[in-house]
């Protein structure tokens, strides 16, 4: 009797267990989505807030956004994790890593495939052309999810311009005019008026796009892994030699690699600089003088110039867990829905106005404009205007860059520039060396990624 009761009890408990278990599975503990990013504070915090908002808006997925170091460090971490069959669902990859991510076809899932597979819909027709172009395949399908894009602009110290008898509302439009302005500023007592951040991005990549110059064959690498660098062209030589001469003349000051020179304008050491549009936030906080934003200068004897500038920043990639290790449908869907959330107009608009990154869509831009934001924040629309310069129609040379091993190539160009600025070589030698060394990197990448 006792035994039968026990047995019945056990049976009841087990069935109950099975039922509650099934219910639990059906209701679903939220699916965990790991998202690794490379944004330091305060931007990282804002990003994590967006993830938190997404989590609060639904029960099925939980995005866990963590800071993994700089963009380069995040890339290394993601690659190592993939090799350990433990890659994150989403990784933020800087723009120059696009080629590497794209070539790793078994590690990354292209965006178009993700959306197709999960049935989530995101409309990319309205996305700013330069943003869309950088992260899409030649046929227009999207490879990764654009998220934080910036471009390069000129920032200048209006007070110093006044002191040098220059019009503080009119930053010079052409490079020769920039040099003249620098001379006047120097005469007015500023030791070295001009500098630049991100020397390669500004003086080679942006420069080529704005002047409709190819940076590499095969449409800047969009057309295949067998591209070769073409930076050794007459206009590029001319501009590099100008920079070298201006440095000798004391007009230009090489401030270091990447964003090392970001502090030179706010601290008052330089009168104007060329930097990422995202530097706006820092200048707002630190500059104790009247300053302005302007579009990048160009050489007006070049027929097509000025075209749009290209973007910098990063995009989001969805990753497989490991080589041959799959993911559940729920995980893929979670990633796709998170991406859709990021593309929502109000989310995208807030991200733009809070951080200074470009608005994702044209209509987002119009919306923010209508709200009077740009009237209150003078100059915040200059980057967008510049991205749309040239009618908003991209050419093969202003679409962006897709070359493998590009971080290394950037360093190579920066190294050759450093040698030139130390007086060890002229512009021609600089570009010859950079081309030669850069092509070695491209060929290595091609060989390593040939399937």
């Amino acid at each position: 009797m006792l035994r039968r009761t026990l047995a019945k009890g056990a049976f009841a408990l087990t069935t109950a267990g099975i039922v509650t278990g099934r219910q639990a599975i059906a209701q679903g503990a939220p699916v965990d989505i790991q998202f690794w990013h490379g944004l330091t504070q305060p931007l990282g915090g804002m990003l994590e807030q967006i993830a938190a908002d997404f989590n609060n808006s639904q029960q099925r997925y939980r995005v866990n956004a963590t800071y993994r170091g700089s963009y380069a460090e995040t890339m290394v971490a993601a690659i190592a994790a993939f090799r350990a069959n433990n890659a994150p669902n989403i990784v933020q990859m800087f723009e120059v890593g696009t080629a590497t991510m794209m070539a790793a076809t078994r590690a990354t899932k292209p965006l178009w495939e993700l959306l197709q597979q999960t049935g989530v819909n995101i409309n990319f027709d309205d996305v700013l052309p330069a943003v869309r172009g950088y992260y899409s395949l030649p046929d227009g399908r999207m490879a990764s999810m654009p998220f934080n894009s910036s471009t390069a602009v000129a920032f200048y110290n209006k007070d110093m311009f006044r002191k040098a008898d220059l019009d503080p509302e009119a930053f010079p439009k052409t490079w020769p005019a920039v040099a003249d302005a620098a001379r006047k500023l120097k005469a007015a007592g500023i030791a070295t008026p001009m500098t630049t951040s991100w020397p390669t991005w500004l003086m080679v990549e942006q420069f080529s796009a704005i002047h409709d110059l190819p940076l590499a064959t095969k449409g800047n690498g969009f057309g295949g892994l067998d591209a070769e660098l073409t930076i050794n062209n007459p206009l590029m030589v001319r501009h590099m030699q100008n920079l070298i001469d201006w440095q000798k003349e004391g007009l230009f000051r090489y401030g270091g690699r990447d964003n090392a020179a970001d502090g030179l304008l706010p601290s008052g050491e330089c009168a104007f600089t060329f930097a990422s549009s995202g530097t706006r936030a820092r200048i707002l906080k630190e500059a104790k003088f009247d300053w302005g934003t302007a579009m990048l200068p160009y050489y007006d004897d070049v027929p097509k110039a000025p075209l749009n500038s290209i973007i910098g920043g990063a995009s989001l990639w969805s990753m497989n867990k490991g080589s041959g290790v799959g993911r559940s449908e729920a995980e893929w869907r979670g990633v796709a829905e998170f991406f859709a959330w990021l593309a929502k107009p109000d989310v995208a608009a807030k991200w733009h106005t809070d951080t200074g990154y470009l608005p994702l869509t044209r209509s987002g831009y119009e919306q923010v404009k209508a709200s009077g934001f740009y009237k209150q924040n003078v100059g915040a629309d200059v980057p967008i205007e510049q991205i749309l310069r040239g009618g908003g129609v991209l050419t093969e040379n202003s679409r962006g860059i897709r070359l493998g091993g590009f971080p290394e190539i950037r360093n190579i160009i920066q190294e050759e520039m450093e040698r030139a600025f130390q007086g060890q070589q002229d512009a021609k030698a600089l570009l010859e060396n950079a081309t030669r060394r850069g092509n070695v990197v491209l060929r290595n990448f091609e060989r390593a990624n040939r399937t």
Partner: protein
Amino acid sequence: MRKSVIFKGKLLPLLLMLPQLVITSIFFFWPAGQAIWSSLLREDAFGLNRNFVGLENFAEVIADPTWRGAAENTVLFAFSVAILALAAALLLAVQADKAIRGSELYKTLLIWPYAVAPAIAAVLWLFLFHPQIGLIGRALNAAQVAWDYRLNGGQAMLLVIIASAWKQVSYNFIFFLAGLQSIPKAVLEAASIDGARPVRRFWTIVFPLLSPTSFFLLTVNLVYAFFDTFGVIHALTQGGPAKATETLIYKVYVDGVENLNLGASAAQSVILMLIVVAVTAVQFRFIERKVHY
């Protein structure tokens, strides 16, 4: 060599050695083997495409002018650091060996830099040599010497040499002092009675007797300069400007971690391994010989 009186037991000693053997296998032999295997492959960053290419990576590395440049930098850097650190330490040790007031205090004051990490030593010297905020940096610029180690390769090399040598002097000092104190006084007294002046005594007697110590220190200093100075370079110059301060070990890091060129980085690692093995083997042979006098 082993003691003649030992304990019985085969399992216990194996168990005692197990922790070290396990850790050594997992974190030393396995990765070392991987490095060698990796150096024979050409693969993409994600490890999806792997091709066996034999010694091709090695051939490319050795033919690469930037690798040769890094090798030259390393030799220049290592010997400069070693010679500077040894000479300064020897001078200080000779002076500290003399029986003078406060010699114990001097010794303490000269030993503590050993505790400073190379990267921190670099940062401290950065505070002195920074063109805008450094005492010496500003003084140099004021004296019309265009000092900016972030733009001038020679200056950058000079700065990393000074920062690295500064830290190493203490280590050498300790050994030189111990070596000096172990020279039998009788030998020195005999020389002094014979009328040899201090300087002559030093070069004909003291220096030769110190030579085993000097040789040992030379190898230690060179190995230090080859490897432990990664922190100095990373903190101060990141191998720049224009690769002026890129040493072989720094290049392994850049090629592997920043450029994701794993085959080349592994090949460079293997070459470095061979160099260290050679240096250590030479040192060990020499020390063995020393034991026999």
